């Protein structure tokens, strides 16, 4: 009899999750376009944070250049669509393949040659920068002038080509995020998940228990990269334009790690809670400033920095573990 993976979550937690899901499903009928776009952003960061969390939270490898996978995914899917008319869901497969290959390359270089810790982080930054500058110079990919997707009218929802209204994008992102959650849960509860945690805790001890740490670290990197590429595909088709300077920039990389760090590295719900908090609060702040007639570019980033600082100093394990304890949902396992 296969074990029911849901049995692991406490009953109260499952109920809360179900309620949250119901609310999120009903939201487009209750809220306006503005709220919808904010939520799309939240779900996007929840998804991409979840993907990053696999590499860092589960396998302990700090990637500060994760934007490279978003960019590779975005450009791959966009190019296939613009030049060959290939729909995003097929293009996504190519995007995943390319990003996974890039991740495998970075992982291979890093793990075979013992590049770890800060060196690994610097390596990831350098690769992302390399991609940024490289794509800037590649004219056939749009270059610094940008790659544009043909924008269709928003009245018709074309899921196959991802052309349509914010509501369509919302549901697509919701499904993707929910799927990511389920995937991460299944991974965490599998042998792979446990092995990742062992490697994160103490790699040498893990090896002494027969764990091929190279293989499992590579797996984490490849899965993380591939998943991030899906977000890249969404990014391309939602925003309809790609500039290397934007897509690969280090601030994108920093942005996408805010959610999981603030929410809680290595936890299942951390990235989601983090994304809600970060994007939600920063939107509120922007609106507050706007109501005073202030438009301060950079204020949002200062806010992010301050939140990161606050979390690192006061709640180092993230907001979610603290919240879960308060809600009576915590389990002893990390």
């Amino acid at each position, binding site marked *: 009899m296969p074990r029911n993976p849901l049995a692991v979550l406490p009953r109260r937690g499952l109920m809360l999750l179900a309620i949250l899901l119901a609310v999120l499903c009903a939201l487009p009928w209750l809220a306006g376009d503005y709220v919808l776009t904010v939520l799309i952003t939240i779900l996007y960061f929840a998804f991409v944070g979840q993907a990053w969390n696999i590499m860092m939270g589960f396998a302990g490898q700090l990637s500060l250049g994760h934007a490279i996978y978003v960019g590779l995914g975005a450009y791959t899917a966009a190019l296939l669509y613009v030049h060959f008319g290939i729909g995003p869901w097929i293009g996504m497969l190519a995007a995943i393949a390319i990003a996974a290959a890039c991740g495998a390359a970075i992982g291979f270089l890093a793990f075979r040659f013992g590049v770890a810790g800060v060196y690994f982080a610097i390596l990831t930054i350098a690769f992302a920068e390399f991609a940024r500058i490289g794509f800037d110079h590649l004219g056939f990919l749009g270059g610094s002038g940008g790659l544009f997707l043909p924008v269709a009218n928003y009245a018709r929802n074309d899921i196959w080509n991802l052309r349509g209204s914010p509501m369509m994008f919302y549901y697509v992102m919701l499904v993707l995020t929910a799927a990511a959650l389920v995937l991460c849960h299944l991974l965490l509860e599998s042998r792979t998940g446990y092995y990742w945690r062992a490697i994160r805790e103490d790699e040498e*001890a893990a090896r002494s228990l027969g764990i091929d740490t190279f293989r499992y670290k590579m797996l984490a990197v490849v899965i993380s990269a591939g998943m991030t590429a899906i977000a890249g595909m969404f990014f391309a088709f939602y925003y309809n334009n790609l500039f290397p300077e934007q897509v690969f920039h280090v601030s994108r990389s920093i942005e996408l790690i805010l959610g999981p760090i603030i929410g809680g590295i290595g936890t299942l719900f951390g990235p989601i809670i983090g994304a809600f908090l970060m994007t939600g609060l920063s939107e509120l702040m922007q609106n507050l400033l706007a109501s005073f007639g202030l438009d301060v570019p950079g204020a949002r980033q200062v806010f992010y920095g301050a939140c990161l600082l606050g979390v690192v100093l006061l709640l180092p394990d993230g907001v979610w573990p603290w919240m879960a304890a308060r809600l009576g949902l915590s389990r002893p396992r990390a």
Partner: protein
Amino acid sequence: MSALLEVQRVSKRFRGLLALDNISFRIEPGSIFAVIGPNGAGKTTLFNMIAGVLVPDGGAIVLQGQHIEGLRPDEICRRGVARTFQLVRPFPALSVEDNVLIGAMLQLPDVRAARMRAQDVLRQLDLFDKRARIAAELTLPDRKRLEVARALATGPRLLLLDEVMAGLRPAETDRMVSILRDLNRESGLTILLIEHVMRAVMTLAAHVLVLHHGALIAQGSPAAVVREPTVVHSYLGAEAVE
């Protein structure tokens, strides 16, 4: 009866220092074998070479007919050799049960089956009641037993223990000794220990090897080895031999 582990003319040099010089011995299956000697004798080097952390410069290490010298630590574990660390390294943020679970998963990929085996092992090591505790919170003796439990869960043919008695009080040492003796008696588990605590060596080991400055200076039953003049002179001191 063929040996479980054969160390054949193994040597190791660290730049100018010859840490181990042409060491050879055999470990029979089902026996408890101890390696003793003063600090710097090369015990840890020998241990690390069997465990796959170091590669010998010369010689071979053969596990039931298969060469294992130069293999990675995880490959060696998969061949049936488990080890503990001198400075214990449990997975600090994980529970006692999860620590052992990860060990059990080597042979049991299914999480549920592995968890059941982990619980069995915890019972053997007298840690079942503490299975939900976080490893970092345990006392040293408990952590040492956890380390042994975790290694044991991988289902090894040969268990390597690196100074597992260090830091334990006499009562705790006796407890660990009786656990190891039971394991050996009930399941025929072969054990190789590096030890300084003579109390444990005398009661546990059937066979003792003495190293000094990288050379093998004595080999035999504990009673015999302990009386050899070279051993007394270099390591034990006359007072230790009552």
